[in-house]
């Protein structure tokens, strides 16, 4: 059973419950797990906290979750491409926490890697430092940033074997590789499902031990 993690997309998305925190890989829609997102829009699961690099566009990828008002709180680095995000933010309908992109990536990585936090020079002297501990190391000031974790991560993979080993293609990798390490349940949408042994042990990017379930997306 552990050895074939394929699951029906409905069952997969049903694992996401109202109020959960989800991470979704992707950058302006590139590398979003589009089928999982569409199914989540269909289910209408609500009050979600969404951790994603951005809120994409209103009609593309994670942007649809915003338009469908399923997100209670958004943690992202950039929301400028989705006017509905700005509208809900300004209207007080959705809480938005803006984080520098490198810090967001590192927070997710730290969550997956069991680190209690890290020191970054990014954001020092800006509003980003508000409420954060500042630590000086060898004369340079850093912000102590804390890890992020999620209940469920939705990941887009290119080729995925039935153990969950993932190979990405092109710029779709972005946050997917990191988020696959940082959630209790990790669901990967595979463009192509491979048999175990078909992927080269040197080329696999995400080891299958991180992956809970695989949804076979089929070739676009």
């Amino acid at each position, binding site marked *: 059973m552990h050895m074939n993690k394929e699951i029906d997309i409905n069952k997969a998305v049903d694992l996401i419950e109202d109020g959960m925190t989800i991470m979704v890989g992707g950058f302006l829609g590139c590398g979003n797990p589009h089928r999982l997102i569409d199914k989540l829009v269909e289910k209408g699961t609500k009050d979600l906290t969404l951790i994603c690099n951005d809120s994409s566009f209103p009609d593309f990828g994670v942007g649809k979750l915003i338009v469908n008002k399923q997100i209670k709180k958004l943690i992202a680095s950039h929301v400028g491409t989705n006017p509905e995000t700005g509208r809900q933010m300004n209207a007080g309908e959705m809480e938005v926490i803006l984080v520098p992109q490198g810090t967001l990536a590192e927070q997710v*990585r730290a969550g997956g890697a069991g680190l209690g936090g890290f020191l970054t020079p990014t954001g020092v002297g800006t509003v980003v430092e508000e409420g954060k501990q500042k630590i000086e190391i060898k004369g340079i000031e850093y912000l102590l940033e804390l890890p992020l974790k999620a209940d469920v991560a939705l990941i887009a993979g290119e080729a995925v074997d039935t153990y969950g080993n993932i190979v990405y293609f092109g710029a779709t990798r972005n946050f997917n590789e990191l988020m696959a390490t940082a959630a209790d349940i990790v669901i990967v949408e595979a463009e192509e499902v491979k048999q175990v042994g078909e992927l080269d042990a040197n080329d696999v990017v995400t080891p299958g031990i991180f992956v809970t379930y695989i949804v076979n997306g089929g070739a676009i």
Partner: protein
Amino acid sequence: MDRNEIKQFIAKRIGRLLHDGDVVNLGIGLPTMVANYLPEGANIFLQSENGFIMVGPAPLKEDEDMRIVNAGGQCVTILPGGVFFNSATSFGIIRGGHVDMTVLGALQVDEKGNLANWMIPGKMVPGMGGAMDLVTGAKKVTIAMEHTAKGAKKILKECTLPLTAAGQVDYIVTEMGFMEVTKDGIVLREINPEFTVEQVQDATEATLIIPEDIKEMGV
């Protein structure tokens, strides 16, 4: 110069700041145009913070692959020798000082090298994206922008908008001149011969330092 000529003029001058082997990150908009003016014969490695290096030109419509987009979300290509990586590696490259220059636009920049380019309270809050990391981490930070915005000054004594980073800007390139931010203030290294020093100063809130050997801003 019309606005397009202004942008080309600025992009060309920035191109001359780059050296063979440099790793460079170009922001969206005007900065992206620098890619058209890289020094001849030099190998410049363009980084895209969403996860790869050696960004190539946009493909033909029929060759577009939605899996290869730049940080502006537009389909691009990757040149031979390019590499894809995840966002943590991408920002490790940026924050770790492995990017020689980043070129970005600005809403405001000041004589302390402070930069504001990510939000206008109450109006526009798109988020900082990768800009804070880029400005903090890149070895050199170059601002590419029109000297003023509809007449409003953008090169200030002190930024009034929320900062992107404090004290990180190295160069400011506008249609009026090429400026360097030093600890004494902003030095007008080169001036566009279409303008006088007085005109540049009038369009600038910060007091410009005018060196004796000020040069003509060639492109």
